[in-house]
């Protein structure tokens, strides 16, 4: 299904769309407030972008350095070329450790690799412990936002879900009651877990350590209790030195939720005594994206979600309409690199207003990349007949001033004289929920010529 079709479904519930739109715009405001309190924010962004660009230009060496240091620290390092291999590696570690119950903190990478269904098919219980992810897991859905996974769900829906799965009492969607119920339930899961899986926010080549950021404390609860800790990371999570964390920890939470930093920023370097620590380094198309000069910078992404919160299309179409692990503007430039055909409608899910690029903490030129993907997609994938034909006609009209003038005159006359039922007839998609302006008698050209004459 194309993005626009899926968005249409999301837009059937107008109240919900309006709420979604406003809730995310409020997060964007919180981001602005937080950012304005930082002296030289723009220089910080430039550093964030520059360090990542440097890292990518030397990524192979940094990966080798990271592996060497991590191994020195007693961490076992694994390499996965794709999602399947990642899943098999994780499963093998769990199998070897006789682990049947697994708790997992937020990791978009494991979503991308579809780890949960893979492990479940092998009879392993895997519980998502971030509250938002826990909600979508119970609902058998996928996250609709990378930082706010359950932003598409109303509190009443969560209430019903918890009644069904956790046996809670009806509470009218009281967030405090529901959060506490999840806390109690998850506490038991943490205590019983045989293994913990976490994502990696930043991996440091210089030290072989890695950092995991959460607000809930769920990554720490998992990793510090279970005897096995598996951390899964994409190759682009690397940064050269520990001091560079200063830049990214300052950028991440402010851009994501408007907090000055996440509640917990955990620095893992060596395992606890008597336990295992594993890192799985995953490529899954990233090295391919690295080969594309126009799209390489998309690998700077630190997964803050700011581009989603600000995007007028994302806010009004919802994350699920993108039909991709990473939705929104950043997802729309990452996904076509993985499967051009499947995700061919995504770069068109944008007004190209550029707001995403403005808020991006690592200065990815998202809207420029969206435009560039459009050029490729139009050439390489079949386009709808109506769109192709109308583009051809428009190209012809815009290239011919006389024709443009004549058609303009007819169009303006029509807008003045034809009934609405004709103007807003079926082929006019714009007219489905909006009216076109009334046609002026004068064109801009006429007005301009007249104005110049009057002034002389």
């Amino acid at each position, binding site marked *: 299904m194309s993005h626009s079709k899926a968005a249409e479904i999301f837009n059937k519930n107008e109240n919900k769309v309006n709420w979604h739109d406003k809730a995310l715009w409020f997060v964007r405001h919180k981001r602005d407030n937080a950012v304005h309190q930082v002296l030289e924010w723009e220089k910080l962004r430039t550093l964030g972008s520059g360090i990542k660009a440097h890292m990518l230009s030397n990524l192979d060496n940094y990966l080798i350095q990271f592996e060497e240091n991590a191994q020195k620290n007693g961490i076992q390092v694994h390499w996965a070329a794709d999602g399947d291999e990642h899943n098999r590696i994780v499963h093998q570690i769990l199998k070897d450790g006789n682990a049947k119950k697994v708790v997992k903190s937020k990791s978009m990478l494991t979503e991308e690799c579809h780890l949960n269904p893979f492990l479940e098919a092998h009879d392993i219980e895997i519980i998502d412990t971030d509250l938002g992810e826990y909600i979508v897991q119970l609902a058998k859905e996928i996250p609709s936002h990378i930082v706010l996974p359950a932003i598409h769900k109303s509190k009443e829906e969560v209430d019903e879900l918890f009644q069904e799965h956790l046996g809670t009492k009806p509470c009218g969607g009281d967030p405090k009651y529901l959060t506490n119920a999840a806390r109690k339930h998850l506490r038991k899961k943490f205590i019983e877990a045989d293994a913990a899986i976490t994502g990696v926010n930043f991996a440091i080549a210089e030290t072989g350590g890695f950092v995991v950021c959460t*607000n809930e404390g769920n990554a720490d609860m998992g990793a510090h209790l279970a005897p096995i800790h598996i951390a899964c990371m994409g190759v682009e999570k690397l940064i050269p030195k520990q001091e560079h964390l200063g830049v990214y920890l*300052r950028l991440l939470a402010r851009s994501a939720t408007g907090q000055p930093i996440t509640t917990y920023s955990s620095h893992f370097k060596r395992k606890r005594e008597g336990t295992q620590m594993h890192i799985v380094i995953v490529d899954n198309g990233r090295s391919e994206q690295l080969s594309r000069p126009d799209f390489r910078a998309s690998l700077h992404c630190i997964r803050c979600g700011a581009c989603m919160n600000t995007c007028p299309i994302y806010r009004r179409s919802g994350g699920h309409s993108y039909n991709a692990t990473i939705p929104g503007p950043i997802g729309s430039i990452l996904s076509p690199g993985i499967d051009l055909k499947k995700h061919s409608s995504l770069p068109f899910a944008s007004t190209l207003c550029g707001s995403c690029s403005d808020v991006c903490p690592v200065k990815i030129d998202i809207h420029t990349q969206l435009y560039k993907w459009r050029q490729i997609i139009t050439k390489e994938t079949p386009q709808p007949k109506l769109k192709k034909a109308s583009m051809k006609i428009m190209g012809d009209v815009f290239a011919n001033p006389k024709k443009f003038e004549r058609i303009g005159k007819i169009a303006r006359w029509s807008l003045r004289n034809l009934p609405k039922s004709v103007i807003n007839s079926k082929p006019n998609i714009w007219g489905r929920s909006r009216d076109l302006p009334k046609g002026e008698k004068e064109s801009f050209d006429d007005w301009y010529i007249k104005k110049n004459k009057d002034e002389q």
Partner: protein
Amino acid sequence: MNSREKILEKIKTNKPSLLELPKIDKDIFVDVNENQLSKFKKMIEAVGGNLLTLNSIDEIIPKLIELFPLAKNNYSHIIEASGFSTIDISEIKKPQELDDLDVLVLEGEIGIAENGAVWISEVNLIIRVLPIITTHLVLVLKESQIVATQHHAFEKIESSDFDYGIFISGPSKTADIEQSLVIGAQGALSLTILLI
């Protein structure tokens, strides 16, 4: 060729030519006229924590009793406040046994004015899960340990080699249900900073 070699080879072929690594000039991020101590206090409040200023280390225990009159299972890793402990941490065999811990008192090593985060490394943590699994967390911090930004904190950490360390800024929280902020997600329900 195994996956490791394949991935590294592909990256080597596909990466752009070497770009320069930018240098961080941390001083440009600091307003010299700003009082970092009052900023730290403001930020602790903003992130949902409580901050109390004590005159001396002797005031810790009376303050803890005042704050947590009903707490039963307590542990203080601050020697001067060890009288507050009701459990013997050396008897803990598995971290899971800490599930019913009410109050934990630890020493913070660095406080950051710009975000209210406090650094604790494994030396002062004893068991990694402690500050997360406890119901209430109390961090004792000296005023002299407050730095302006995250960059300054990493400068201080640079020379130390830690197995594990954590920045904690406020109590655990979530806003995953309709964006309503709820204090107390999976970690500690409250955070108190005792500033000396």
